[in-house]
């Protein structure tokens, strides 16, 4: 069975189906992270004391990670733009860079976690550490998910470029929307956990 509206916009929604699908998924993701941010606010407002992020967390590492993730968002959007300009070689370059940057982010995060564990700082240590590990852990899982999808689109998935280039370009755009959302969550996590 042919999947309808993978390329041309559906007349009643004005967009191709996958785009509406990813946006509805991202809306549900906003509520998922929203629930956790809301819990953070409740816990912080209700706490008698709250540690400053800089007392426990490594701001230089997190700043580097912020730069890495924002850069990966740019390379992601550039990979889509390369396909829109019918340049598959440049697409591979940018998509490869996006995946590599995502891995750099995860490695840096791994070092951060390892340093916390070395100092005996586990989620059970305090409410702050609990919410730190919950939020960054869930965000990290999203990064892993993005790496898996983007690797598929760089590897076996890119065969579609030969058979249906417009549909493949849309797939990359949809994967990009997800990736920018993951970047967007970090843009809020960084100041909330580290800087305040």
């Amino acid at each position, binding site marked *: 069975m042919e999947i309808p509206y993978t390329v041309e916009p559906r007349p009643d929604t004005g967009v191709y189906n996958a785009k509406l699908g990813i946006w509805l998924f991202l809306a549900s993701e906003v509520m998922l992270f929203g629930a956790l*941010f809301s819990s953070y606010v409740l816990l912080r407002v209700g706490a008698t004391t709250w540690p400053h992020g800089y007392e426990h967390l490594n701001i230089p590492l997190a700043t580097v990670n912020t730069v890495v993730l924002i850069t990966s968002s740019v390379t992601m959007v550039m990979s889509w733009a390369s396909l829109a300009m019918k340049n598959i070689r440049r697409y591979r370059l940018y998509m490869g860079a996006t995946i590599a940057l995502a891995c750099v982010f995860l490695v840096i995060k791994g070092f951060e976690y390892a340093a916390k564990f070395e100092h005996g700082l586990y989620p059970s240590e305090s409410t702050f550490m609990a919410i730190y590990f919950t939020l960054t852990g869930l965000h990290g899982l999203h990064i892993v998910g993005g790496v898996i999808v983007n690797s598929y689109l760089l590897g076996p998935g890119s065969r579609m470029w030969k058979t249906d280039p417009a549909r493949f370009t849309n797939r990359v755009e949809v994967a990009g929307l997800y990736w920018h959302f993951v970047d967007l969550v970090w*843009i809020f996590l960084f100041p909330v956990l580290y800087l305040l």
Partner: protein
Amino acid sequence: METASAEGIRKHVRVYVTVFVALMALTLITVTISTLHLATPVAIVVALCIAGLKASLVAAYFMHLISEKKLIVAALTLTAVLFLALMVLPVSHFADRGL
């Protein structure tokens, strides 16, 4: 974005680079301000304003929301309202107690 021409895409690319530079500058600014250790309420407002600005840039230009169809914008507006309600709930709980 479906019918974007090659020339149109090239214009997009220039915008992406500009947005990238702006995002880097805002990251630098927010980290620099945090080293001043301002009073917590002021620091929260400043940091969240900068984060909001960065998020808007990503959503508007990288996610193309600035030129997106009405249906998607409507769905996201509803999401934003529900998200704000989630954020206000815990604060209002304490405001109610006069804290």
